[in-house]
């Protein structure tokens, strides 16, 4: 038996890319990685960012590398295709591709292998595609470089490839430039160019980050089909739920080292390492409601006095039949918000979920009175709000505040944290310093941040400052516009915990806008599902996520990747 296996392994030559996986393909790993260490030496210091990583990648299998920013997962992936970065020193006990030692590849050999036998899908499709070239030409370029066919057959192949990855109207799309395509289409065009030459291995670095759920589901489905065709897949992601479906084997990386690795089914359901457990626990979903996502992180300082709010005097924010139309450049009109109504009850969270372009952000801006609705009205605490003149509204703006996705751009770059927060304080505040200290305590920051610039702080710290600023005027309503979307899972978990704590302590109402159903279902009491500017479904969170009625909601909930 073993003799048979060894002969079949020995027979396997360096045959050209083939879609059908033979018995030999299944046993001999495409990639064999043992003790891979990558460093960027500086001043005699090895500066290793990847330490001692080992795994096998077989045909028709998917190895997922999961970790947060700075864990070394992307450097690992890039090293596999011979692009570890400038000044990198790569050491490994073994690093072989189909039995050949990759460390001895010349740049010329790499160019031969890359594209033809190893396809690469990079994270940011907008940056990775040439903005001046139609995507079809970009994909044809990959074919041309490897001497594939003539011009006409290449053109036909490009259209075929785009159709394969689910791009509608591929012939027209091939003639368009990246900026004319949506994020999902761009990402699929990148995948098309990665699989153009039918490579045996595809390395996908965060292929679905920044994509809407349903588009993400399509991209994942395409990767799944590739896997079924016998392609070996390396999937890099910060999101465990994304890799859960696809991965056969998962490596969890942290600070350059693999903290845990194993078959996906085992690792996801029975994680051993504390970090893996924490990562899995940090993913918000309907099941995590009322539970802390980052239990090992200390709670923020409790607020001195319990907020005493009027018990029940109706909804704090009422939006009635608002409609907003934008004029598009080059003629045409876009109805961004179409007859949307909702109530936000005091001390509760209303989640607005929808994909990009669904009008959820415009709805939030109308609620904030940053945008004037064409018709309809928003009322704050039962009084006129959106219909007021700005001068009349100004003194009441303190009743409402906002936290954005990218806090850095919402801070004046010339200002320190201290000045940013002082600027947001109620003018009636007498003891500025005490109030600042209280705010920082509420969001769990040290006093020393006051003298620092947000630019020099981490993403989580910046978001905490944005939250502190939003709390500074003791508002009734805080609009959270994708407030945690740009954060790593564990940081996101901490911020979500913080928001839940603050709501409980201060009785604030949240208008939570997100494309992430996990976040919405974890936080919201009521949910509004928006599509093309209109509300397609509304109801208590449990209803929406357990018994979605509208077809679109069902599609969204169905597309939601989950851990386990």
């Amino acid at each position: 038996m073993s003799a048979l296996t060894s002969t079949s392994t020995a027979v396997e030559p360096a045959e050209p890319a083939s879609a059908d996986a033979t018995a030999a393909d299944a046993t001999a790993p495409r990639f064999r990685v043992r003790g891979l260490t990558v460093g960027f030496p500086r001043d005699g210091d090895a500066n290793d960012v990847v330490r001692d990583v080992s795994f096998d990648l077989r045909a028709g299998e998917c190895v997922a590398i999961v970790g947060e920013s700075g864990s070394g997962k992307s450097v690992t992936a890039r090293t596999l295709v011979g692009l570890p970065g400038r000044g990198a020193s790569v050491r490994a006990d073994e690093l072989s591709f189909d039995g050949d030692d990759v460390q001895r590849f010349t740049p010329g050999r790499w160019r031969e292998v890359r594209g033809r036998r190893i396809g690469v899908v990079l994270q940011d499709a907008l940056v990775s595609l040439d903005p001046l070239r139609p995507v079809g030409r970009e994909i044809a370029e990959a074919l041309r470089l490897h001497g594939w066919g003539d011009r006409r057959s290449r053109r036909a192949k490009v259209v075929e490839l785009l159709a394969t990855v689910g791009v509608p109207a591929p012939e027209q799309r091939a003639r368009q430039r990246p900026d004319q395509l949506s994020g999902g289409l761009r990402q699929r065009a990148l995948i098309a160019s990665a699989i153009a030459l039918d490579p045996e291995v595809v390395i996908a670095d965060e292929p679905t980050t920044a994509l809407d759920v349903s588009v993400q589901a399509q991209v994942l489905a395409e990767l799944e089909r590739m896997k079924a065709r016998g392609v070996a897949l390396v999937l890099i992601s910060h999101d465990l739920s994304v890799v859960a479906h696809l991965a056969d084997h998962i490596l969890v990386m942290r600070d350059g080292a693999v903290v845990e690795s194993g078959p996906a089914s085992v690792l996801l359901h029975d994680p051993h390492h504390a970090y893996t457990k924490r990562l899995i626990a940090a993913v918000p979903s309907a099941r995590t409601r009322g539970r802390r996502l980052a239990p090992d992180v200390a709670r923020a300082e409790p607020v001195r006095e319990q907020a005493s709010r009027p018990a029940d005097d109706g909804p704090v924010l009422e939006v009635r039949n608002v409609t907003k139309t934008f004029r598009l450049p080059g003629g045409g009109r876009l109805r961004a918000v179409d007859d949307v109504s909702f109530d936000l009850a005091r001390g509760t969270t209303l989640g607005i979920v929808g994909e990009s372009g669904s009008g959820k952000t415009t709805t939030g801006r109308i609620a904030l009175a940053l945008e004037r609705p064409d018709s309809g009205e928003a009322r704050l605490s039962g009084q006129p709000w959106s219909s007021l003149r700005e001068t009349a509204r100004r003194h009441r703006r303190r009743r409402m505040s906002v936290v954005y996705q990218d806090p850095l751009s919402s801070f004046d770059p010339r200002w320190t944290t201290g000045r940013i927060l002082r600027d947001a304080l109620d003018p009636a505040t007498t003891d500025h310093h005490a109030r600042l200290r209280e705010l920082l305590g509420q969001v769990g920051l040290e006093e020393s941040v006051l003298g620092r610039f947000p630019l020099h702080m981490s993403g989580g710290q910046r978001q905490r400052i944005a939250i502190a600023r939003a709390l500074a005027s003791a508002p009734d309503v805080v609009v959270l516009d994708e407030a945690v979307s740009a954060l790593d899972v564990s940081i996101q978990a901490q911020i979500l915990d913080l928001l839940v704590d603050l709501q409980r302590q201060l009785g604030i109402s949240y208008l939570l806008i997100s494309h992430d159903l996990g976040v919405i279902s974890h936080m919201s009491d009521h949910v509004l599902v928006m599509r093309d500017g209109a509300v397609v479904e509304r109801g208590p969170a449990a209803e929406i996520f357990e018994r979605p009625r509208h077809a679109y909601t069902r599609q969204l909930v169905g597309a939601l990747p989950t851990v386990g």
Partner: protein
Amino acid sequence: MTVATDRPVTEAPAAAGGAGAGTGAGTTGGSPVAVALTRPRRRRRALRHAGLVLALVTLALILVAILFPGALTSGSPTATNLDEPLRSPSWSHWFGTDESGRDLYARVVHGARDSLLIGGGAAAVAIGLALLLGSLAALGHRWVAGATNRLIEVVFAFPTLLAALLLVAVLGPSAWTQVFAVGIGSSPGYARIVRGQVLAAKGSGYVEAAVELGHPRRRILLRHVMPNAVRPLVAIFALAVGQMIVWASSLSFLGLGVAPPSSEWGALLDAGRPYVTRASWLIIAPGLVIVVLALATTTVGKHLRNLLERGSA
């Protein structure tokens, strides 16, 4: 995933150099983050700083020439010596002598004041006008903004020198005319920059955040929009001074600048023109001085800009 290497923010050695050539004053606000530098980067930085130090020393020398020309030369810029016309540069006459035997070095040193007053004045006029027009074009009511924009475009359509010539033709040649002609002629370019900066600041997230906090419009304009829009202009001003001197020199060279007895550098160029083949130093020496000055202000300007764009300060 890039390896996070915080770009260190360093203090420009402007204060340490003590040169303080006016322009250095703004650079001392950099955040004092001490960072251990790696060797190759340290060398690169040292080279870059050598350029800055050289530029600052140049500016300091020119400042001395403006304030105390006597400290740099004992010679008189107007003393003629008909025994020594058109002598080539030597130990006794560093830049040689002109057709009347006047020492060219003394003339260049004494000409610094006029040259820089004209250059700096023109830059101030250009930037001042640009601030006014650019802000109007970005913040004014719809029709005010539209009209201002058209005005900027019309003036922009003229080549700078042609616009300056037109003004000189109307006002007659003099130092003041030169200042205004060059300043007005080159303002539209800067006005476009100001407009862009103001629009960018106006549409920024922090302005929206300030609106949301309920701050009045005027306060937002003064606290957020203008300071952020003007920040890059500090550096642009330093760059402009050098350019303005070159523009002003070209007016003087055409004989449309200051009157002959003055030894403004452009006027020196003009005066040397007839002797180009016989005594080329008459053109080369003042020409080089203009180039060196423009280089120095440009270098300092670039450093200022880099420093200010780091986000702090």
